[in-house]
């Protein structure tokens, strides 16, 4: 009797496993779900999964912010990479690309009935490439376009004009500091959002070509322009341009919190934070450009720091799996459709890189304001994305924390980053 029962149990388990194997499971790891809880984009994702549940089971692995990077690295080390996941661009991908873990996009594009190569700008495809765009390992969805806002009321209250030069920036900072207002809400925690300000000043002094040289080692980080950038930042720190406690007020969220509360006069922020700005503060803000630094070769009104920063990548082994390929192709067709891109922009505020016209009626006022401000400007890639691998990106970030906190000299800052780049190029020749 016992043997019969045992036999039946084993048979049932086998049947269940066979049944389960017939329908693939797709694991999607992301930081976009639950970012704005109950958003229409999110509802559409779940509705899609529900509509195809007879053919494929979706498993959502949701991790917010930079913790998604940690989660993916852990999964990678455990040989348990999700089937499809959001990830960052360029140097961040290096270890996965070198190990052949990521699908090359043309494998999908030849199967897709919806998405074409021309749907995304080449420069954005190149963000997911390590060889100048020959082989591309991800879909560039989100841009990191930096924008600056000024609080109209605060400037009017102290009878100040928006600073157009660094001297004016230092002058208005003096007034704001005397009245307990943070002039410019840029702190640094894990390099955020400070490295964008580094990029802004550096590009004014040097231009995009030098920045490109950091990635392939043809330009040293210790260039006079980068040293001058660090010196200007130190000057601004001493003048109280930034929050006093740069670490506690660092990272993207605390900066917006300061600005939303009317405790900061200006802010540099980014598309993924658009949904966190209050309606009142947006209505009371003007879009401004960074002030021109002394010796600037490129006017701040001529370029924007940004570039494709985040998007979707696919596990190469998953796409090669015949059981999963059709399901992944269909999911990507849905995910990368114009309708979903519109929803990403309107509900999450993401700066969508796809070649398409967004429905402005769906977009937030801040999104529209930023769109007008960046129109026609050169787009120069943020320096964090220019770092060739995760190690150099990490050193670049922590060095920014030290520069903002005043615990490192400008020379020490450029030397620290250069050392990390030297170590990288020495071991990757």
């Amino acid at each position, binding site marked *: 009797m016992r043997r019969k029962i045992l036999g039946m149990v084993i048979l049932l388990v086998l049947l269940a496993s066979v049944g389960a194997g017939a329908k693939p499971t797709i694991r999607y790891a992301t930081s976009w779900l639950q970012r704005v809880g109950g958003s229409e984009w999110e509802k559409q994702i779940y509705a899609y999964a529900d509509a195809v549940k007879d053919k494929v089971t979706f498993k959502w692995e949701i991790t917010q912010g930079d913790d998604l*990077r*940690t989660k993916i*690295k*852990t999964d*990678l*080390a455990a040989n348990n990479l999700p089937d499809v996941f959001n990830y960052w661009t360029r140097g961040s991908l290096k*270890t*996965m690309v*070198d*190990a052949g*873990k990521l699908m090359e996009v043309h494998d999908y594009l030849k199967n897709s009935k919806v998405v074409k190569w021309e749907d995304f700008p080449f420069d954005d495809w190149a963000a997911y490439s390590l060889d100048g765009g020959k082989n591309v390992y991800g879909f560039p969805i989100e841009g990191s376009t930096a924008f600056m806002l000024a609080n109209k009321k605060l400037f009017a209250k102290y009878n100040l004009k928006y600073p157009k030069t660094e001297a004016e920036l230092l002058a208005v900072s003096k007034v704001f500091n005397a009245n307990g207002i*943070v002039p410019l809400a840029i702190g*640094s*925690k*894990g390099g955020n959002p400070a490295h964008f300000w580094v990029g802004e000043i550096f590009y004014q002094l040097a231009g995009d070509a030098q920045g490109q040289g950091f990635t392939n080692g043809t330009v040293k980080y210790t260039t006079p322009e980068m040293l001058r950038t660090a010196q200007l930042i130190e000057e601004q720190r001493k003048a109280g341009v930034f*929050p*006093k*406690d*740069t*670490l*506690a*007020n660092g990272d993207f969220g605390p900066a917006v919190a*300061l600005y939303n*509360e009317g*405790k900061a006069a200006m802010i540099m922020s980014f598309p993924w934070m658009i949904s966190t700005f209050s309606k009142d503060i947006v209505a009371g803000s003007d879009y401004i450009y960074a002030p021109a630094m002394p010796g600037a070769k490129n006017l701040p009104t001529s370029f924007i720091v940004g570039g494709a920063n985040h998007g979707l990548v696919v596990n190469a082994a998953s796409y090669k799996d015949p059981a999963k390929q059709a399901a992944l192709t269909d999911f990507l067709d849905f995910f990368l459709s114009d309708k979903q891109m519109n929803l990403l922009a309107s509900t999450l505020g993401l700066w969508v890189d796809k070649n398409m016209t967004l429905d402005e009626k769906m977009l937030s006022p801040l999104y529209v304001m930023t769109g007008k401000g960046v129109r026609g400007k050169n787009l120069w890639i943020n320096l964090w994305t220019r770092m060739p*691998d*995760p*190690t150099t990106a*990490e*050193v670049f970030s*922590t*060095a920014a*924390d*030290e520069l*903002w*906190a*005043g*615990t*490192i000299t400008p020379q020490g800052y450029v030397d620290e980053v250069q050392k990390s780049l030297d170590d990288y190029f020495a071991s990757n020749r």
Partner: protein
Amino acid sequence: MSLRKGAGSFTVAFLAPGLVIYVAFVVLPVALSLYYSLTNWNGVGPQRWVGIHNYIKMFSQDPKYWTVVKNSFFLVGLALIVQNPMGIFLAYLVSRTKHGYKLFRSIYFLPVVISASATAVMFSVIFNNQVGPFNQLGKFLGVSFLNVNWLSDPATVLPVVASVQVWQYMGIQFVVFLAAVQSIPSDIIESALLDGASSVRMLFSIVVPLLWEVVQICVIWTVTGALKAFDHAWLMTWGGPGIASTYLPVYMFRMAFKESSFSYGTTIAMSILVFSLVFTVFFKRFMSRSTDQF
């Protein structure tokens, strides 16, 4: 007394599950970590054997490592100086309280049950120079020495981050010592009182000697716990600015998960294990004495 026939397999059957779990979740990870520390591995692809190269790098070529060790030892020192003495003192006071015993016990243990994340975020706001109540109070009272960038100034960030951790977990030592104090036979206390012993004399001459084995355990917990500290430093400052508030586990995390140097990260993890083991062995060897008996 010999085991009955079949008792051996009965014993094994009951010990086996625990042993299997212990091997799977403790012994195996430690052994794998040791192996990874002897390789060059970025978390993907094959591990390349490099022998003790990572250890040589850690001990002699990485100046940041020794700064991080110093930070961890600072936390250990602060925890030892504050948590255990305060734990015994508060436990002694509370045990002698006639009214409000349960209230005080709950108050002192409450910080322990709050999540470390919530505590870290809360104190990040409290110590925020721009908006935190600590600095606002200083401005209100006109006290300039409170106007400090607590979390950005390398001179203050480590003491602040360490203090938050020490404060939060002091309740653990407190409840352990409270239970131990309450287990001291009441006739010993009464005899001491009859002999005219003051409260202070009773604490140092009777209570502490009687609790010596408990003190040893709490000291080992404190040291090993401090050596594993991660949450507060990471959530408040990410170990920054630079490595000013980085402990060994934070450094290990940054190496493994931020810089994708898994082998170097596990090398640091092994050093944490070695520090903990060395301390435990030496402490038990040189500080161990039998608890006084009355």
